[in-house]
């Protein structure tokens, strides 16, 4: 251990020095490390308390139940209980439905918006501000606003549809249209940040690529498909991943707008978890659901990492 670490991690061999020097070096190194850890301790404690410990606690809890204030091991009983609940499968179905529709619209919309804005030679700053504006609203304000627009009777949307002689919709009130309506609200509120990220990526594409493609006779759509998409592939896949993980945690929209209804059609997994804990008072079963969620979303993350590594090796 007769080695001191200088700043920057370079190793300086002090083995040749005498025992006295060696002791001093060790003491210096110890003091330096203590000081460095003093800088770290605040953040480290917060991570321990609010991320790492809860993670372990959730797994432990999911195999236990509380009887008269005493935790007892119950094996897989919580998992059996949650998977036997028909609401569990319904919740996964609605979550996947939301994620699916949200990806179809919410993933395409910002990309298309970014391409269009990038082509505008005027008012680009204005458009960027507009698209991002809803992101800055308190989410509940934006969401509640849509409650009025989507009212089947006096709502603005149906009035516009009616004026255009198009069929009106029952929006949040019907089982089949409730989820797509929530996707609309959530896309409106959140697409701004993805749009701006794509816009920055588009501005990094060298213009010669488009020129070359044009000389080869590629039309507008072909240029998008063969130049724009491959050039932004990395950021596209990153955002796809982030969006899958974010949309699968959807809660606020259905809590505020539909309360999980009609007929449980918008009860997402996180909503069910909330219900189990705070309405049915079954924290341990909720923890089991949390662990299942961690595993499913963990698979998505792992799949993404694997895809990204494979993409980089090619």
């Amino acid at each position, binding site marked *: 251990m007769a080695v001191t670490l200088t700043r920057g991690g370079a190793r300086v061999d002090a083995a040749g020095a005498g025992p006295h020097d060696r002791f001093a070096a060790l003491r210096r190194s110890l003091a330096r490390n203590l000081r460095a850890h003093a800088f770290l301790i605040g953040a480290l404690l917060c*991570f321990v308390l609010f991320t790492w410990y809860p993670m372990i606690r959730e797994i432990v809890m999911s195999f236990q139940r509380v009887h008269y204030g005493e935790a007892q091991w119950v094996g897989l009983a919580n998992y059996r209980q949650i998977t036997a609940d028909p609401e569990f499968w319904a919740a996964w179905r609605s979550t996947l439905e939301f994620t699916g529709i949200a990806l179809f619209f919410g993933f395409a919309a910002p990309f298309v918006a970014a391409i269009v804005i990038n082509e505008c030679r005027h008012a680009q700053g204005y458009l960027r501000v507009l698209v991002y504006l809803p992101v800055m609203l308190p989410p509940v304000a934006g969401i509640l606003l849509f409650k009025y627009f989507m009212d089947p009777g006096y709502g603005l949307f149906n009035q516009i549809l009616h004026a255009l002689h198009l069929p009106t919709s029952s929006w949040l009130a019907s089982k089949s249209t409730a989820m797509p309506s929530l996707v609309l609200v959530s896309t409106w509120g959140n697409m701004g940040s993805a749009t701006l990220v794509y816009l920055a990526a588009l501005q990094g594409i060298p213009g010669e690529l488009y020129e070359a493609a044009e000389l080869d006779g590629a039309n507008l759509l072909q240029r998008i498909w063969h130049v724009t998409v491959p050039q932004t592939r990395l950021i596209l896949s990153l955002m796809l991943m982030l969006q899958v993980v974010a949309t699968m945690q959807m809660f*606020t929209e259905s809590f505020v707008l539909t309360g999980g209804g009609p007929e449980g059609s918008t009860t997402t997994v996180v909503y069910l978890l909330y219900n189990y804990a705070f309405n049915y008072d079954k924290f341990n079963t909720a923890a089991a659901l949390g662990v299942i969620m961690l595993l499913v979303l963990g698979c998505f993350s792992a799949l993404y990492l694997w895809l990204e590594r494979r993409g980089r090796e090619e």
Partner: protein
Amino acid sequence: MTTAAHSGATRTLVSPVRLAQPRGRLLYRLVLTLVLLVTTIAFVGPLYWMATGGFKSSQELVRTPPTLFPTHPATHAFTEAWSRLGMGGLLLNTVVYAGGALLFQLLFDVAAAYALSKLRPVLGNVILGMMLASMMIPAAALVIPQYLTVLDLPLVHWNLQDTPWVIWLPTVANAFNIFLLKRFFDSIPNELLDAAAIDGAGPLRVLWSVVLPLSRPILGVVSIFGVVAVWKDFLWPLITVPSHETLNVGVNTAATSMPENSLIAGLFLASIPTIALFLVFQRNIMAGLTAGGLKG
């Protein structure tokens, strides 16, 4: 910074030659007008409806066809919204939560990133790795054990529910902040710090008078997003501070029991602070988005 696209120096999807032709110019004008129109209606329209809705009566709000301007503008709904929502209290709570969270994040995350980047203690990389790995954890899946933890903090047995600490401290455990800050600190040359150290400055002094002044842009980004995240959060404040609600949660709690025009007025009032923040710090926010996004 983005004006390069306007100048025609950078070539984009559509060629500048095409645009210079009369037909191209006409088509461009047409598309531009359409884009401006659609975007304005889609993104400002709802906000306009919200801003004017508070000046209408509840009957006028649900009238078909809807009115574009309030027929008899009245401010009554705004005063009612302010008092019935307890807007002053909600606003104060949210400012206290966001301000404290910002303070703690700057204090602890900057110190941690500095230690990991420049002081490099033993096990530093292991700690950094574990912090970054937590970015993969979906936040909502951990809500239950986190909630039980703040009800009875391990070892000291404090109940943090309904205190600002329950909002402040968990925001410090933000791996993305530490990642951004560390990456920025890594780009500051060590020679600069060594020079200060030779002059007798300790690590704290070096951080304060060398590193921080250089890091203003990244500190701005971390601060703005720190404040906005607390302002927008819903599930966590909903369960942890039920008697001292944030603006976001409080508006929802009161929503069902209010006349419609007052609620719309309340939504508008609740939206003003962050919209104002955005219009003032527009540039930093947009720069911050890409700083975080591009290098994942």
